[in-house]
């Protein structure tokens, strides 16, 4: 089943008199269980496309379907709800709420999803373990390394059982060892738990781990390669 389906998706920014086509008529399908990367130079439209798919931004033209639902027609509150239940977001940095511990940051999603407290530990602890965070659950973000923070962000993105995880350059602030490490963990979760990932990167070592490489240039898809 298609998790993401975009048709002629465009996002045009008005920069004074000039128009910037950040995303330009993109037709893209992501299937359930994929581990795909959006690759492309800076300014090619990676963030804009991820934001459109995740309902953080609205398209100028075209449509986005997420698990069969048309996002264009949703109100802001419905989009927020879709983000809470269907999408896990990971950003480049400052993903975590600084006043909450690692555990609480992950738990926060379950709390606002309304999952009973009794189930929290059973869902959070294995995930933190899987991501190599055991023993760090009571630390605040400021007491964690950049790589550890991003792994907590992965845990938070995944804990609510979304249909897809959208990660905008999750490794950009990490040294390459941590970056590859993080990606390998994400890949393992993809394989074991069948979580769909779509992330962006311009780091070749990270791109190489992906199963599918979608290359963007000037807001258009210029290449789409699947590995076996």
């Amino acid at each position, binding site marked *: 089943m298609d998790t993401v389906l975009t048709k002629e998706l465009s996002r045009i920014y008005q920069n004074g008199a000039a128009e910037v086509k950040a995303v330009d008529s993109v037709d893209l399908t992501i299937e359930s269980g994929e581990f795909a990367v959006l690759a492309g130079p800076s300014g090619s439209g990676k963030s804009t496309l991820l934001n459109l798919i*995740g309902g*953080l931004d609205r398209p100028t033209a075209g449509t986005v379907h997420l698990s069969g639902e048309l996002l264009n027609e949703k109100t802001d509150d419905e989009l927020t709800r879709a983000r*809470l239940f269907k999408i896990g977001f990971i950003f480049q*940095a400052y993903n975590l709420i600084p006043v909450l511990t690692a555990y609480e940051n992950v738990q926060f999603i379950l709390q606002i999803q309304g999952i009973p407290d009794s189930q929290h530990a059973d869902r959070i602890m294995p995930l933190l373990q899987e991501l190599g965070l055991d023993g760090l659950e009571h630390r605040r973000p400021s007491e964690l390394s950049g790589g550890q923070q991003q792994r907590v962000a992965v845990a938070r993105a995944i804990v609510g059982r979304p249909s897809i995880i959208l990660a905008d350059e999750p490794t950009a602030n990490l040294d390459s060892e941590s970056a590859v490490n993080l990606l390998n963990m994400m890949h393992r979760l993809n394989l074991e738990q069948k979580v769909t990932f779509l992330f962006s990167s311009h780091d070749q070592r990270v791109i190489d781990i992906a199963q599918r490489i979608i290359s963007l240039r000037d807001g258009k898809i210029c290449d789409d390669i699947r590995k076996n």
Partner: protein
Amino acid sequence: MLWLNLAWRNLWRNRTRTLVLLLVISGSLTFVAWMQNIACGSYDKMIEEAVRMGSGHLSFHHPGYPAERLTEQYFLRSQAMPLLAGRTGIAAILPRLYVSALARSSRDNRAIMMLGVDFDLEKQVNPLLKETKTVAGHIPASDTQKLAYIGIKLAENLRIDIGNKLVVMFQDLSGEINSKLYRVGGIFKSGVTQLDSSTIFVNRISLAEGLGNRDALHELAVLLDSRDDLPKHLRQLKGACAEIHGLSVYSWEETSKQIADAIKIDSTQFKFMIFLLYILVTVGTVNLLLMSIIERTREFGLLRAIGLDKRRIGWLITCEALLLGSLGALIGLVATTVLSFYSWHYGIDFSAMFGEAEVAGMLFDMRINSSWEWGWMFGLAAAMIIVVLLASIYPVRKALRIAPAEAMKRH
């Protein structure tokens, strides 16, 4: 619980800012609530002294007397006394006559006001008839008919001293000129010029006989045990007086109108000051809350991105304001209680600043014990919480306007 917990931790992210805000909120509350307790204490004191020097908490008069004060506007003691019989909560009943007269000594003469009083009754309650005000001789006893208690200035003007004679001339109730002979029994110094230069106290019965009716009164002043009972007594006595011709009852607010007005003006000014201060607190709180919102722009973007709707974001900030306001109000109430306890128990002596204060021909001692205005204290504290909540409206709206996609581009 989740939101309060998160809000609480958010408050302490910027310790200094939160402490400053708490100080502003609790400091302002303490200031106004404590001042209110002191002000009400001073009003209480003014009223209590005024009713003792003046016409009591409530007083009986001939209906025209409070406005015109003519000698012939009298009533009979026997008309009024039955109305007070069996009434509980009464501390003192003071019958009085006021007669303007000409006083003549062997050396000089002066226009004066004669007060016919029951000395033994007055001594117990009237601050003017205290031995501390006596500079020579004594306050006459009730059973002495011929002794007068006179102001020091008057004694000087008439050039008389203890034991000297003075003759007073006045119109009696039928309009005839009458005269009486008194000896100076005591001389007082009240500090109020008008009293010291033109007042003499004499035995009421002897003066009433001089007027031609032993039972005549111009005033029957009633002191209550508690001012709280005044409305009840006033209502009942007004009802009873309606059926008696030539007798009316008045409250202290009517007979000491100048004092009542002075208090009203003072408390209105104070309310205005509270209003201004609360506006200042609002402005300060808006600014500091706004700063904390703008600093967290990216975080609000993140919260929106991971699925918090506007309602929840608004609620989170409201919780922060609520905690801030409540904590500030609590600290303010505790501080007010501590300060008020001190000023209630020990009193504050403003006489160093103001000396004794003369208001409307009466002299007030400036040692003030604050009262406990619990209604005001909690009202002001609740108003402070509301002020902080109101101050959060604009910052909340600002936070809700943050577009998540844009906010996430910031670092």
